């Protein structure tokens, strides 16, 4: 029998067992435990399961943006070689992908089309090539309707959504008055384009049915949510659906909720009686999954002559489909990053017939800080102040909006350490004036901040008398390092070498985990493993006749009261325990966030406007670092996302129909090897007792927060040109470069 050991974070956990573990695993820079499989092609991703009698599904999509389908003529497709069937379901096919952490079905029904490329049917054939070819033979007859495609025009009648990750609107004091009376002000609009998560693995599902219901191998980040969501879409009880996702080729938000291929594959499999594999093409991923919304952000800063902020305004317009409540919470970090009594932070949605907007890595901070942190840089310039100093002057003792303390805040320390490591005192201080040959050199910095979250998460741990352990949860590892950190936590707390711990993830057959999203995965799922291990330790202590505090576990032995005893001599059979963490009042009583600072050096070609990044230093503080190696990699990933946002990434929508014009990896420009220099990433030691029993905070998104702004500020420093419209491509710089 398994006990469930539950902890609700209603008060801080002052003492973490991780600090008294004897195995020496947590915090180390250990290699990923699943690494050998990944580097040898033996990690199995969702499209890769060998299944008997499988048929291939290929999605058919609407060749128009808005309207109603009157007929789908399938005759030619059905007659094509190898075609098993052409399947649609006007009621149950999903129109929009699901948002993250949602247990209900997303918007269903595809007779009505609301964005270009909406999936409306699926061709099933013996072979992939046959399905792909036949899909081009399906003829869709429709009455075209009128859509909205113009973002600027929609701003005048934008709507105020319900609160989301951030409040939709917030006001404190009077920003207009603060602006009118301030010594120095900044007031400007920044724009950021739609973006795509562009995980290297496209969305893919293999669906198969048996008497127990549906099994779906799917590339999904949050199986404990995606299961009920998919079940709801299909009219099933959640127990009748099992999602299996042990390896996921990247997510970055794009795979939080179920996407169209899952329901289409499930229905097609039911209809044809065959297992169906539906892999989205890269173009389909761009057209018909989820994007980060474009934004227009007005930033107002009011400051006194010493740089102390008296007011911050951050008013954002973002876009989404008519049925959707999600908004890109661009002002989310503005709520807590800097002081200033007068504040206004709003988010309005412009309703557009563009593919669903949802969460992409650091929804909110990722684009919000592209605006706020550049405005801060402009303010520093106006004041004639060191941009680092300006940030430090506006560091706060407590949350500037609520009367609550920060759980931890090493913000100033990050700024100081980063400045030191980068050599900030030697920076170029005259914009446009430092030149080497045809290159203009610039230095820039920006702050990083990302709120920390906790989600309910459960894990089962089994300790065997032979000194091995198994951890099971339907939590995922999307490249974040979950396999490794859960192995480390279990090994540390149970006193086992890391290779004696097996972690099984991404299967609804295991206890429901938090899933990967919002940087809460490590803290939430790690805590569930911690709690299960704590309960096992109590049982071992009891068997030894000592108190748990007096028990040391190391290398498969229990050490207490001067005795060393092998586990097999204490327990006859396996001990099993389930741990469950729940968010509690600590989420409200303190403000929890990770902080940091980015510093970078760029070169801008004085003739062409080409931007190269030469050097990068970032310093972060985010509670305990569980694995120095995987944590550093997470920050690299975030920083490079920031580089992409600053310089190249932009989904271009056709103004006539919202269609994404550059819907592949040749036209949507991700950073490549040649765009990324060595990155110097440092973590400051911190423990957050309010966050969870691990004392760790999320880091998967902290790295992107502010990163792009550091690039933009460095470009401004190099050239003297302030481009407020991202990405900063050469064409936008060319006109404002100093004379050659």
């Amino acid at each position, binding site marked *: 029998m398994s006990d469930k050991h539950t902890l609700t974070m209603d008060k801080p956990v002052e003492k973490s067992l991780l600090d008294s573990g004897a195995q020496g695993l947590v915090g180390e820079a250990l*290699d*990923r435990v*699943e*690494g*050998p*499989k*990944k*580097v*040898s*092609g*033996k*990690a*199995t*991703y969702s*499209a*890769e399961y*060998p299944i008997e009698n499988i048929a291939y599904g290929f999605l058919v999509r609407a060749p128009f943006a808005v309207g109603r389908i009157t007929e789908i003529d399938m005759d030619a497709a059905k007659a094509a070689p190898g075609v098993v069937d052409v399947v649609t379901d006007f009621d149950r096919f999903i129109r929009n992908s699901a948002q993250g952490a949602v247990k209900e079905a997303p918007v269903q029904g595809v007779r009505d089309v609301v964005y270009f490329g909406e999936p409306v049917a699926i061709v099933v054939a013996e*072979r*992939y*090539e*046959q399905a792909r*070819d036949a899909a081009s033979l399906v003829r869709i007859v429709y009455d075209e309707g009128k859509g909205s495609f113009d973002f600027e025009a929609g701003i005048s009648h934008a709507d105020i959504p319900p609160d989301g990750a951030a409040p939709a609107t917030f006001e404190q004091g009077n920003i207009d008055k603060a602006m009118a009376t301030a010594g120095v002000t900044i007031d400007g609009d920044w724009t950021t384009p739609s973006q795509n*998560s*562009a*995980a*290297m*693995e*496209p969305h893919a599902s293999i669906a198969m049915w048996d008497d127990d219901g549906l099994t779906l191998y799917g590339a999904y980040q949050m199986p404990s949510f995606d299961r009920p969501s998919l079940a709801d879409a299909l009219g099933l009880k959640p127990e009748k659906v099992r999602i299996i996702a042990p*390896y*996921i*080729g*990247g997510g*970055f938000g794009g795979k939080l909720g179920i996407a169209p291929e899952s329901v289409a594959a499930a229905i097609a499999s039911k209809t044809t009686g065959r297992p169906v594999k539906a*892999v989205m*093409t*890269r173009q389909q991923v761009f057209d018909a999954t989820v994007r980060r919304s474009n934004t227009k952000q007005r930033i107002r800063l009011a400051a006194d002559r010493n740089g102390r902020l008296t007011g911050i305004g951050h008013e954002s317009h973002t876009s989404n489909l008519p049925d959707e409540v999600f908004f890109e919470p661009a002002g989310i970090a503005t709520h807590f990053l800097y002081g200033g009594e007068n504040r206004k932070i709003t988010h309005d949605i412009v309703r557009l017939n563009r593919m669903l907007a949802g969460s992409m890595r650091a929804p909110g901070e990722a684009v919000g800080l592209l605006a706020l942190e550049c405005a801060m840089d402009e303010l520093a310039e106006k004041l004639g102040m060191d941009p680092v100093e300006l940030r430090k002057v506006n560091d706060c003792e407590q949350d500037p909006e609520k009367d609550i303390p920060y759980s931890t805040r090493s913000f100033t320390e990050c700024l100081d350490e980063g400045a030191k490591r980068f050599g900030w005192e030697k920076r170029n201080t005259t914009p446009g004036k430092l030149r080497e040959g045809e290159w203009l050199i610039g230095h820039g910095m920006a702050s990083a901040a990302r709120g920390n979250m906790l989600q309910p998460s459960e894990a089962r741990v089994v300790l065997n008398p032979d000194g091995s352990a198994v951890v099971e949860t339907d939590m995922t590892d*999307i*490249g*974040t390092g979950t396999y490794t950190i859960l192995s480390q936590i279990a090994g540390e707390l149970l006193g086992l070498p890391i290779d004696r711990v097996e972690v099984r993830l991404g299967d609804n057959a295991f206890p429901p985990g938090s899933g990967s999203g919002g940087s809460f995965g490590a803290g939430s799922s790690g805590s569930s493993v911690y709690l299960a291990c704590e309960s096992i330790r109590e049982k071992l202590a009891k068997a030894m006749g000592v108190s748990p505090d007096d028990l040391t576990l190391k290398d498969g032995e229990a050490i207490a009261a001067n005795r060393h005893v092998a586990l097999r001599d204490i327990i006859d059979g396996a001990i099993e325990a389930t741990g469950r963490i729940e968010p509690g009042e600590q989420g409200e009583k303190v403000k929890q966030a990770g902080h940091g600072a980015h510093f970078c050096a760029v070169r801008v070609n004085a003739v062409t406007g080409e931007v190269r990044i030469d050097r990068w230093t970032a310093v972060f503080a985010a509670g305990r670092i569980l694995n120095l190696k*995987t944590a*550093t*990699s*997470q920050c*690299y*990933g975030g*920083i*490079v*996302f920031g580089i992409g946002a600053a310089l190249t990434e932009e989904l271009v929508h056709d103004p006539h129909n919202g269609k994404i014009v550059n819907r*592949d*990896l*040749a036209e949507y420009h*991700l*950073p*490549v*090897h*040649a765009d*990324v*220099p*060595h*990155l110097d990433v440092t973590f400051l030691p911190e423990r957050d007792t309010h966050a969870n029993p691990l004392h760790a905070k999320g880091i998967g998104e902290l790295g992107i927060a502010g990163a792009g702004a550091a690039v933009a500020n460095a470009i401004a420093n190099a050239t003297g040109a302030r481009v407020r419209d991202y990405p900063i491509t050469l064409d936008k710089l060319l006109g404002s470069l100093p004379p050659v």
Partner: protein
Amino acid sequence: MHFTINGTKYDADPDIRTSLLDLLREHLGLTGSKKGCDHGQCGACTVLVNGRRINSCLTLAVMHQDDEITTIEGIGTPDNLAPLQSAFVRHDGFQCGYCTPGQICSATGMLDEAKKGWPSHVSESLDGDIALSDEEIRERMSGNLCRCSAYPNIVDAIREIAGEDA
């Protein structure tokens, strides 16, 4: 049709339109090679054909019946990793792992190209020996996208192995 992959002979009956990548993944169960774009834009599908790296999504299987094809499965196994594979693990040259087989096959081909003295866009001269600086490695690996952005660590892993070979 007959194919030689990682030294093993395979018989298969792919469609005439089947790419080399889909032959591997869908017909032969060699799913180590990944599909990220199917259009030659990401490098996830990189394999070695007669020792040279190519995007296997951009070529038809039917064209490769007389070729020696090496995929990630032929480079090393979890219990017997090639030095480059171990270096990727040590340097954390991957996160999700999806681009990784392509990166490793590409780097294997790239190291050979450099050894043969093939210049790149950033090489100082068109002939003579190539010293694999970080800039050279980055340039030569830029056809392999990694959205997780393990780039700095991939360069570290490749540099270590390039140094050993030199």
